[in-house]
């Protein structure tokens, strides 16, 4: 790792610079060196543009037969669980490695600063209380001093209370995925509505939707209480692959199967709709949009949607709807209305 930091700058061409800037280890010194290199010669800037273009265009290859064949071989050699395991061995990354590229670029630098901030706080040995929010369409990873991760989905607000004896997250709105480091002395609590989900070392998703909350467990086991601190309140153990919902009044639903695909997909900045009614799909997709898409003709609401869509690529989503459902999207300013053609 050390030798990587000392990578000699002088021998790098455009590809080398571009590769280095994607290493996630860019600080101001590297940034300044890159900037100098870019202005040294016009050929440098042009070569860098070519590399950017090659990189961007390569993403358009997905779905082509030759690339798909190579990717099949790749997945056979390195199956998804092996990749996930490798990701989990890397401190500070975990399974959140699959964040979309643009967010990753912005996120990594911010994350580095964030870690420094939190660690400093921790060294002062005080209880720190910090709020984190995401805007509509944004996702963000928070790393706690113990290397637990919180991935915030769109339009989410959490308050993190952290000390030597306490790990508490208040999910005030939205949805978050928690990857918790084991620490028996210090359980990890997620408060949402009046309920609390308690974990020791595990990975789980909590979503607040109006007056109900949904907890889904991807790894390990958590305890869910509908009414935190109420000894007579309902509680249940939820284990991997399972989910439970609770109301603001503290009533728990039966334990049911977790929709792990949905959660892994949002983690990868995608949504997956399998035979989903258009109305439900829009309700979900609109969580990521400032200007919501609405159904103009009630008869469209029951049409079914199938597909994998990249969060943030609204144009592609609308285009797919127009093509697939034979509808027309009309922007009114405050919303986008789907009408029959």
């Amino acid at each position: 790792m050390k030798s990587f930091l000392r990578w000699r700058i002088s021998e790098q061409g455009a590809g080398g610079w571009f590769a280095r800037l994607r290493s996630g280890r860019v600080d101001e010194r590297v940034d300044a060196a890159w900037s100098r290199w870019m202005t040294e010669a016009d050929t440098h800037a042009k070569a860098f543009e070519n590399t950017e273009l090659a990189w961007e265009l390569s993403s358009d290859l997905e779905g082509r037969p030759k690339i798909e064949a190579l990717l099949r071989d790749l997945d056979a050699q390195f199956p998804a669980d092996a990749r996930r395991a490798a990701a989990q061995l890397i401190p500070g990354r975990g399974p959140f490695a699959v964040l979309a590229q643009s967010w990753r670029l912005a996120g990594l630098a911010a994350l580095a600063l964030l870690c420094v901030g939190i660690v400093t706080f921790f060294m002062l040995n005080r209880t720190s209380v910090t709020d984190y929010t995401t805007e509509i369409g944004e996702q963000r990873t928070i790393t706690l001093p113990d290397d637990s991760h919180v991935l915030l989905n769109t339009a989410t607000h959490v308050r993190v209370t952290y000390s030597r004896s306490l790990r508490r997250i208040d999910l005030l709105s939205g949805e978050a995925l928690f990857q918790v480091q084991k620490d028996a002395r210090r359980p990890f609590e997620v408060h949402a509505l009046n309920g609390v989900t308690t974990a020791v070392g595990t990975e789980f998703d909590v979503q607040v939707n109006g007056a109900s909350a949904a907890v889904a467990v991807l790894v390990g086991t958590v305890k869910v209480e509908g009414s935190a601190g109420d000894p007579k309140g309902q509680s249940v153990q939820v284990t991997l692959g399972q989910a439970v919902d609770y109301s603001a009044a503290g009533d728990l639903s039966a334990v049911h199967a977790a929709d792990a695909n949905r959660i892994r997909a949002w983690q990868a900045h995608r949504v997956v709709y399998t035979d989903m009614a258009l109305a439900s799909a829009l309700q979900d997709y609109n969580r990521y949009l400032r200007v919501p898409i609405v159904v103009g003709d009630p008869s469209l609401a029951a049409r079914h949607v199938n597909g994998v869509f990249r969060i943030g690529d609204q144009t592609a989503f609308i285009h797919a709807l127009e093509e697939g459902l034979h509808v027309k999207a009309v922007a009114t300013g405050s919303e986008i209305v789907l009408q029959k053609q």
Partner: protein
Amino acid sequence: MMDQLPPGTPQNERTEPDAAPVQTPDAASAAISHREYVTQLFTKYRASLQRYLTRLVRPDDAAELVQETYFRLLRHENTVRLEAMARAFLFHTATNLARDHRRRGLVRRSDQHVALDDLEIAQEHQGPEQQLVGEQILAQIERAIADLPADTRTVFLLHRFRDLSYPEIAKLMNLSTRSVARKMADALERLSSVVEATL
């Protein structure tokens, strides 16, 4: 869309609904405003961006997309204050705008299509007309990837299509992080020479 608007001229700024207050530890240290930072950045890379977009869309469309990119960047409040990262965001945004532009062009042209009750269009399955550049160049990039040395190709594919970071790839392939970065550099050099030769 407006024809021209020099960076820093505020009269036509698009407004977005106010975002929730975000407390980022680094926000306080911002010496210059977001607008000033974006404007400086944009002024510096404008010519490069224009040149880049002209390879993807018609020149007058490129000029329009350059402006649109500037607005997008203005709206993106948490732009990282590292120039290389900000530039990457700038060019990535511009490329996506060019993609959208292509798609819109396609929608305008396609009046007749088959009515399907269900929708089966995943992002991966785009028709040739929706491609950002011609079939020929894509085929050449694809071939260049296939022709990369095996390890180099694996590194590139894992990073590009499976979203693994260098340290993750290093663990997976039992390589050093440094040599993963070297292989990425090699792959990118090859692909960019294809782009340079044909586009």
